[in-house]
Each structure stands twice: as structure tokens, then as C-alpha cells.
């Protein structure tokens, strides 16, 4: 290894060498352009400023906070606060209006549907499904059968006070007798079940005189003439294709023998009134609202 005191220019490339030679191989000096260098220095200075101004250095429980006091959580809170303020004009109106008036107002109805849709995903999908399609024992909210009534006001009442929910004195309450215990013999249950099945053409149904008499004696009081249903009492219609606990003859017999009853929370105890109204407007808009 050797070096020279003179600046040397490489013949082939015309570039200055650094004077370093290894085994006859010379190292060319190709310096960085100065603008690049200053940009590099600039980024270092920027980084120092950033470390001072913003949270940067991780510590055991958290990080340095930075003189600007910025935090992404705080920034999110600010944005949520702003969003709330922006929504206040709608939310305040919704809180002060009846659900019928909200539905009649295009702008408010649109806002309520959007808000209701997101609240629905949080609180309702666990039972009613993400598409509000329900399931066995959980009503489908898209269809046109409503146990407690399908007007937006009736839906609002149901959501606000729930069904068979003890903590709310205004909750919907009804109970179908356990006919299998004492009221009816197994033969009578079979007979009335076949009659009920015949009302909507379920396979195995038979409209016998005995069944009809049993139905009129035991069922019409709640389920209405011809099984038309009575939303005020929460008695489902029996003359259509929609069955909460299954639509085969066996399902019907099981329900008459030992009825099952669902329970729904009173959401007014957990959510504010405007949110419950938004939910009602949303559910009402799913396609079956009356």
C-alpha cells in the first residue's frame, strides 16, 4: 500500500483518485454532491427538533411526551369531540322529536339510519345477526311479521323497554301457558297443532272440528280469530309463513306443549334516548317496517 502527495487523476475515467492504492488498484474519489450533504444534515436537524417536539424516546412505562404535548390518543379524542359537536345539531333534534316525525324528515331519517346501523352492529347483532336476519328464537327484523308491532313507534317502544326484562317496569310482558302440563292432553295438543298448521298450509296440518274447537277455546284470546296475531299482546300471527321457533308440525307441537319465551334487554336503561330512536328508525327501514 502506498500513497502519493499529489492529487492524481485517473486516466481512464478522468476522475480524481483518493491516492489509495491496493495491489495497483486505485480508489476513485467520487464525492457526494453538496446539496445531498446539506439535505442529509437538514434531516438530522429535523430529527432533533422532532424528538424535542413530539413523543419519541421509548421509556419503561410510556415514552417522552415532547414539548408540544401531542399524543395520538389525544388527537383521536379531539377528533371524536369534533365529530360529536358536528353531530349535535342532528342528535339534539332527534332527541326532541317523536320517531314518526324523524322518519318524515328526510335528512334526519338518513342521519338516524346511519347512526342506528352502527349502533345495531354493537348491541344487536349478537342475537339478531349482523344482517338482522335473526335465527331460531330470535326474530328476523327484515321481514313483515312483528310480534310487538311493526310501526316505527312500536319498534321504538320494544327497543326502549325490551321484552320480559325485569329491570324495566314498562317492559313487554306476556306468557303462553304451558299446555303440556295440565291444560291439554297429548292428543288434544296434537289435534290443535294440526289445526294451527293447517292455517298456513304447513305439511301435516288438518283442520278438524276438534282442533278448531280447541283452538277457539284456548288460543283465540291471544292469537286472534283465525290466528291473525295480536301485536298489542305480543302474540305472533299463526296464519303465515313466519315461525319464530320453527315451522314444522313437530315444532308447533313442541311450542304448544312447552312454550319457549325470548328475552330482550330494555335498551333505554343503557343507551340514551336519541340512540334508541336512531335504532328504531334503522330497524324500521330494513324492509318490513309498517
Amino acid at each position, binding site marked *: *500500500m*502506498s*500513497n*502519493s*502527495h499529489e*492529487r492524481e487523476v485517473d486516466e481512464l475515467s478522468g476522475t*480524481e483518485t*483518493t*491516492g*489509495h492504492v491496493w495491489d495497483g488498484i486505485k480508489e476513485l*474519489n467520487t*464525492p*457526494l*454532491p*453538496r*446539496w*445531498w*450533504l446539506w439535505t442529509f444534515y437538514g434531516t438530522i436537524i429535523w430529527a432533533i427538533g422532532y424528538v424535542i417536539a413530539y413523543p419519541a424516546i421509548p421509556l419503561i412505562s410510556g415514552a417522552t411526551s415532547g414539548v408540544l404535548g401531542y399524543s395520538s390518543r389525544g388527537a383521536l379524542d379531539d377528533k371524536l369531540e369534533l365529530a360529536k359537536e358536528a353531530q349535535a345539531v342532528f342528535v339534539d333534534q332527534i332527541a326532541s322529536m317523536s320517531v314518526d316525525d324523524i322518519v318524515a324528515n328526510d335528512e334526519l331519517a338518513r342521519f338516524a339510519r346511519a347512526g342506528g346501523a352502527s349502533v345495531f352492529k354493537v348491541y344487536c347483532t349478537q342475537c339478531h*345477526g*349482523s*344482517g*338482522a*336476519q335473526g335465527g331460531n328464537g330470535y326474530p*328476523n327484523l*327484515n*321481514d*313483515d*311479521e312483528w310480534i310487538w308491532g311493526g310501526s316505527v313507534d312500536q319498534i321504538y317502544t320494544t327497543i326502549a323497554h325490551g321484552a320480559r326484562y325485569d329491570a324495566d317496569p314498562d317492559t313487554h310482558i306476556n306468557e303462553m301457558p304451558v299446555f303440556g302440563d295440565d291444560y291439554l292432553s297429548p292428543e288434544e295438543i296434537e289435534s290443535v297443532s294440526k289445526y294451527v298448521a293447517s292455517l298456513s298450509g304447513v305439511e301435516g296440518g288438518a283442520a278438524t272440528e276438534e282442533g278448531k274447537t280447541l283452538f277457539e277455546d284456548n288460543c283465540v284470546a291471544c292469537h286472534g280469530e283465525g290466528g291473525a296475531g295480536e301485536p298489542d299482546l305480543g302474540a305472533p*300471527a299463526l296464519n*303465515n*309463513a*313466519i315461525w319464530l321457533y320453527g315451522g314444522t308440525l313437530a315444532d308447533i307441537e313442541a311450542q304448544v306443549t312447552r312454550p319457549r319465551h325470548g328475552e330482550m334487554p330494555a335498551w333505554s336503561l343503557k343507551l340514551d334516548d336519541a340512540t334508541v330512536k336512531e335504532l328504531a328508525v334503522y330497524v324500521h*327501514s330494513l*324492509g*318490513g*317496517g309498517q
Partner: protein
Amino acid sequence: MLDIKKDDPGQIEEFDAEAVNKAGVRQPLYAARKKVFPKRATGNFRRFKWLVMLLTLGVYYITPWLRWDRGPYAPDQFVLVDLANRRFYFAFIEIWPQEFYYVAGMLVMAGIGLFLITSTVGRAWCGYTCPQTVWVDLFLVVERAIEGDRNARMKLDAAPWSFDKVWRRLLKHVTWILIGVATGGAWIFYFADAPTLFWDFVHFDAPSVAYMTVAILTATTYTFGGIMREQVCTYMCPWPRIQAAMLDEYSLTVTYNEWRGEPRSKHAKKMAAQGKPVGDCVDCNACVAVCPMGIDIRDGQQLECITCALCIDACDGVMDKLGKERGLISYATLNDYNNNMRVAMGHDVHQQGDPVSHIVPANVRKPDGGGFVDRIRNTNWRSIIRPRTLLYFGVWSAIGIAMLFILATRERLDLNVLHDRNPLYVMLSDGAVRNGYDVKILNMTPEPRQVTLTLVGLEGGAMKLADGSDAVTSMVLDVEPDKVLPLRLYVQTDPKLLTEKPQKFELVATDADAGEESRVTVKFEAP
């Protein structure tokens, strides 16, 4: 204890070493830029470049102010990129976001066009139309007007600070910044109604993004065009690297014709009198003085050369004065250049060492002095036409024609239908099945339209809107100009009538007045 006796220098090993980074020999890690002071050139290419500059800058600054009547429902700006409403207007063409493939097609065309241009006329983009080149040219005009031409500028640069230097420099930089502001200012007018935005801008009522854009573009224009200049092309731009792959031996490049220039001499007459061979180059360095990139074209084709051809103008001027043929520096292909070099070097072609030293001027000129021998080739336009460039041109024009065809035949009424994913279907109390759809009717003309939506091919099917209208098989809807009409549509039928699952049927949007129709095949799901 080491067994080294003091006062015995023979015991200490001496090294034949010198510090690599000794203060006296240490090389700088970073090189300062050497300023380039391009001299004003005159000639055909300079005139052409003035024209291109006038045209490109004119198009850039004036376009946003041109108007184009589109009726009362659409903006009247000739070119408008309406980001807020997601529309792009260019004369009679209106593009919606889903038609962005036009822009993609334009970019592909621009790419292939660049290949085409490069493989034929070399780096014409760099030399004439690249914004960097145009704006540097503009900034140089300002610099020359204020500080004088090359020699005056070099003198001023070397001079100590004085009142004269301060005001000239100040005026120059202020003018540059004003040009930068105008550049950024023109840019924002493409994105909003120009007169309105201008009024708002000067009254400080414009959106902050407008001021930020102008500030950023002012900074980049001033920095790139005024301060960094040739360094942008040399260090920052990828195109000089890419062009190496694009050029071939038939591409036009700005070439110093060594075969007639060498041996160069400042004392041509004296040399000739002494009987020594002498070429046409008188080593006047006029080509170096005008070069905005600070290179010597006589070193051959270089990465830095943007082929602005100003050295051709400079050299042609000198050749005219000397009474010699123009074109010592000229646009030439490598192929022709190599041929001419072979002629110039005679049978010395395979000699070792610097080829230039083997050039014999007598080989290229006719003995009577009347021009060049016949074997010398002049590059002409025929070099442009060859399979490669024809292929580029074919692909380029095929894309262009395809785009024009699509543009001419595109529908301005569109129907989008999205089936509900959850639930797929809903059973109704009367035994019917209902499917839900999100329907969008797109009226892509700036006129209000009446569109008929029809249900076709679903046995017993009927549709209604979510707002509770009656079940029908055909409904008439008013669609606002240049808007999307979103609908929540329910379709229901008796599942016993279905012939397949899922059942396919059609939704048809028709505008009878315009004779336009959009059909969508839709699925009807059932248990």
C-alpha cells in the same frame, strides 16, 4: 522485561508507511458544485427552443383560463380536475373516477411515446420540452437580462460584494421567486374555477391547500430552476439512466464529428502551413461556453448531455465564419459516426490506443477540397424509420385508436346493482321471498334525465323502493344532471315460480329520449 537495549536504533523496526488521511493529502469528502455560466446561443436550434418555450409555457399558463360551455349543470372551464366532485373535464370529454383508465392509457401512451421519441431523435424530451429544461431556460433569460452574458456573470460571481452585485442578485432572485409563484399559481387553477380561485386567492379567502400548493411549487421551481439547474438532470432525474437502454446506434444524438474535427488546433493555419494534418475544430470552446450542463460535447456522448443542441448552434456559427461546412457538431447516429470514423482512420482502424490520434483529415475530404468523400455518410431522416420505431409507433397508435374508440362509443348512462350479502334473502309472511339490492343509476351527462328502470325475466317478480312505494315491474325515475341516483330496491316473488337457484334476471335502465340503455344481469337468491 523486554530485552531491548536503549540507544540501539537497530532494534526498532521502521515502517515504510504514511498516514492515508494525512492532513496535507486528505481529499475532500464532498465536492462543491462548480457553477455553470451558459453563454447565449443563436441559431436555428435556439430559435426552435424559444418557440417550444413559448408554446409550453403558454399552454401551461393560459389553459386554466380557457372556457368551454357545458350548459348550466357543469363547470365551464376548458380543463378542470374537480377533485372535490371527482370529475375531470377536458373540452367535450368528461371523465368519472371509474373511467380513470383513460388516464392510465394516456400514461402508457406517454411512456411508449417517450420510447419512440428517444429511439428516434434521442433525448428530445430532455433537451426541448422537459419542464426542468424550459424553466431553467426561462430563469437563464432573467439571469442574463439582469447580470449580463457569460463573461459578465463570471466576473460578477468572482467580484467582492458591492452595491451593484447586491441589487443585481436581489433582483434576480426576487424575479425567480415571482416566476415560481406564477408557476405554482397556474397549477392550482387546474383544480378549481380559475377566476373564482384567483379572486379568493388574492383576497386570502382561498382554501389553505391552495396556498400550500403554491408555496411548495414556488420553492421547487426556485430551487430546481434557479439554484440546482443541471444538477437536477445529472443527479436526481432517472431518465438519463433509462435513456441508455432506449438509445441504439440509429438514434439521433448530438455528436461531435471527430472524423472531421481532429486533430483540433487553435493555430490551424500555422499547422497547415507546416504541412501538419489539421481538422476542422479550431478549439474555440464555443460549444463549451453555451452548454447549460457544463460539459464538453467533444468528449463524446455523455449522461449529462440533454441534447439541447445549443452547441450545434454555437459551432455552426463558428464554421460559417471560417467558411467551412456546418455540422462539425450535429445530430448524428452512432452508426453513421462509426462509418465516418472508419473512413477517417483509413486502415488504421484496428490500431491500439487513442483512436483520435489515427484520424487523417485527408481521408475524409476530396483532394480538390470540394467537400467530403462519397463514403462519408450524412445522417438523414431515414434513420428514424426502422422496425423498432415502427413497432413503438404501432403500439402507441393502437392504444390511441383503442382509447378514441372507447371514448366515442362509451355509455353515459350506467346501472350498478349490488345484491345484499347479508341476509341473502328474506322470507315474507305470505310465503314470498324478498331480495334486497343497492342500485345506482349513473347519469353521466350534465343534463337532467328521466330513466325507466325495468325488471325483466323474473317470473311473478315485482320490485319496490325501500320508501314503501307500490310493487311494480317498471318505474320512472328522475336523475339529476351529472349525478348518481342511489336506490334501495326490494325485489320479491313466489319461490315456487323460480326455475333455478339462484335465479338470474335483468334490471334495465333506459333513457328513451337519448336512446341509451344499460342492462345488468342480477341474481335472485332463495332458500
